[in-house]
């Protein structure tokens, strides 16, 4: 019989919250970066491409550590936020930021694939019919890359659910505050007698991942049919 302690429930709820927040805050940036990389010619495009994709190959722990340096009390951003009375480190927001950074390349890649598949002539048509760049982005490019956006969001969401390395460094492993499912499993697995509880949470992780995949397929198929 699978049973959950209140701390487990908190971890599940927190995981979902962190993954949703990470996905939502990344989406506008993901669309913007994918747009820049697909449609705009500018100097330093390769550099931007590299930076965006770096988290894909970099160990998440490294990302976590760099974020800690950036967001910590003496970091560039951390000191500014500190002056405004905001502390990010060791909060669930830090976990969301860590997840967002780690999942960002997956999001951008998917959206970019969607945008690259759009016939350039449709964009020319839109511009010559009186739509400016922003209008074209909103009324033509984004609707036509909806599949990529949905796919990317689902990947990002799933990646956030599984985020461990970066999260444990910037957010710590505080039950009820920053302890997500992977961190809770880690704690159960490293304490004696925690096997059953760890396994229960593993099932939750599997169920959530499957749900995301099914949702992704469903929406992808629906959008595909419309084309």
């Amino acid at each position, binding site marked *: 019989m699978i049973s959950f302690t209140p701390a487990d429930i908190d971890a599940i709820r927190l995981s979902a919250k962190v993954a949703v927040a990470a996905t939502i805050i990344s989406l506008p940036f993901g669309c913007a970066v994918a747009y820049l990389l697909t449609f705009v010619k500018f100097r330093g495009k390769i550099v931007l491409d590299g930076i965006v994709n770096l988290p894909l190959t970099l160990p998440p722990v490294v990302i976590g550590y760099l974020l800690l340096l950036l967001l910590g009390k003496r970091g560039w951003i951390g000191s500014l936020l500190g002056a405004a009375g905001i502390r990010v480190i060791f909060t669930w927001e830090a976990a969301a930021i860590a997840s967002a950074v780690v999942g960002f390349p997956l999001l951008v890649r998917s959206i970019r694939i969607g945008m690259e598949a759009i016939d350039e*002539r449709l964009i020319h048509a839109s511009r*010559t019919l009186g739509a400016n760049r922003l209008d074209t982005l909103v009324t*033509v490019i984004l609707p036509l890359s909806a599949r990529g956006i949905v796919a990317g969001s689902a990947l990002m969401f799933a990646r956030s659910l599984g985020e461990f390395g970066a999260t444990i460094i910037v957010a710590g492993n505080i039950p009820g505050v920053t302890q997500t499912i992977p961190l809770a499993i880690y704690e159960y697995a490293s304490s004696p007698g925690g096997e059953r509880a760890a396994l229960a949470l593993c099932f939750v992780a599997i169920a959530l991942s499957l749900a995301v995949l099914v949702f992704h397929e469903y929406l992808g198929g629906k959008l595909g049919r419309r084309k």
Partner: protein
Amino acid sequence: MELSVNVAKSFGEFTLRADFTLKGDRLGVFGASGSGKSTLVNLLAGTMAPDDGTILLDGECLYSRSERINVPPERRRIAMVFQDPHLFPHLSVRNNLLYGYKRCVPEDRRIELDSVVEVLKLADLLDRGVSNLSGGEQQRVAIGRAVLANPRLLLMDEPLSALDDQLKFQIIPYLKGVCEEFAIPFVFITHSLVEMRLMAERVIVFEKGRIVQQATADQLARQRMGTSQVGYINLFRLKDSRRVDGLTAYRWGDGELLLTTGPTGEEGLFELSSRDIILFKRHPEAISARNLLQCRVVSAFEVGNRTGLELECGGGRLVAEIARMAAEELDIREGGEVFAAVKASAFRKLG
């Protein structure tokens, strides 16, 4: 409309250099593929910037490198119809049609949805998605969408090339119809002389990125009849048909033409090659060809080693082509009389 262009644009090996001024409302750009026609279209529409030069439309500067002007495409009011319809797949026919209209400032809106729907016969399609329309329907929607943007110039880049012959000649009346009905000046780009003659008056000819000639569409067709495999194509728009002993007789000028094609009862467009006309000096006693037309020679012109003849018969005009030796034997003189024989089966129906 007056279009004045002096631009240069290079990609790798290819360089486009265009320097021309065209006046008129039915302009043509003619050239083989790869000659730079589509590049010119993109430069005019603003979807591509030239490397250097100026573009003026009715005196308004759209691009000038020296004055650092480059009006973005959405403010040029130059709409496009492409080879493929390129309709927005996520919008209904109605919303495709209205895409440009909604973005046109109200003062410039003089063409309304209802009238375009009527001219292009789109009423039954309005609420459908665009993916389940036929090729011809899609292209009609694309034309409507461009026209409803209320442009001051319509660019048509090979708009008929993707359609089969039958559909092509069905679409042409729509294209001409909307442009005439709503008085929209256009630039028609094609590699087909027949399409050019049906659509445009003044034509510039592109070859390898350069303009090699400016002429009327008909002048161009006459010049090229020597090198073309089919000679000069005489075009006939015929109506008022009646059946005569298995053939179809159409009114043409003062007389009639007998054709094997038909009967349709409706107006039809037919072609006849200059090479399918046989000339006689005197009226032959009997002949198998069903059309024997008494003609006056309006003009004779040299095309390669052959002679082209413009003939006038009963109000209609024909261009025939004969060997130079034949011209001497027939004693062709301007103002002279000849008889032209054309088989009823030599006419081909275009649409």
